[in-house]
């Protein structure tokens, strides 16, 4: 799994590549937590090259969303979710918790 963070004027774009499972989710969490610790609560997670995500990844997204939405300071949005991952998110009842975008331009522009 590879994570890259790009800081834009109004939000952070965090790209996660590869697979997020119980082994790699801690690093995913770390990247999300770092953004929050730096005072960034408007986050777009680019999932265009994410092949796989288990509930360990969903947990990390949920925790960060809670933190971002506290005091209305921001939110976490998801970008370019693959069909497989979207189906799993739907099954877990998570799709209603996150705004989704088809591309990073729209996602970043939404903030």
């Amino acid at each position: 799994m590879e994570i890259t963070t790009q800081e834009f004027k109004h939000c952070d774009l965090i790209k996660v590549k590869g697979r997020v499972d119980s082994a790699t989710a801690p690093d995913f969490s770390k990247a999300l937590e770092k953004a929050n610790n730096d005072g960034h609560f408007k986050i777009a997670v680019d999932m265009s090259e994410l092949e796989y995500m288990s509930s360990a990844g969903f947990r990390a997204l949920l925790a960060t969303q809670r933190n971002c939405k506290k005091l209305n300071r921001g939110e976490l949005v998801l970008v370019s979710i693959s069909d497989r991952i979207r189906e799993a998110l739907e099954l877990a009842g998570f799709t209603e918790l996150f705004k989704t975008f088809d591309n990073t331009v729209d996602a970043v522009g939404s903030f």
Partner: protein
Amino acid sequence: MPKITFPARFELLDEIRDLVAHTARDGGFTEKDIYSLQLAADEAASNIIEHAYLGVADASIDISCDMQSDLIVITMHDTGQSFDPAKVKKPNLEADLSDRQIGGLGIYLMRKLMDEVSYESNLTGNLLTMTKRRR
């Protein structure tokens, strides 16, 4: 059914998913179902590592994955703490963000993704069996 012993560490999840994908692909499952099977196996193995073997080093899980006609049968045997799935509260998928519970999500996904999920605990340990029919 040949069993493979995996060290009970998250680093092995890749291999466990590969084993399941390989069997499912040979068994003629669709790509969508192959993903579901990998996810269910991942959630199951992760639960064993995280809960059954909490605080235990050098533990292992015996996993078998076979086609029985058009049915894939995945079993996972561990010698960790026994587990009663009836005690796990079903996650409330309608809860709003602040009330949403994460606990129980793994088992919930397993039950939704597989046709059948059963647990058995006895003196030899815990046996999880999951099956899914090829469509």
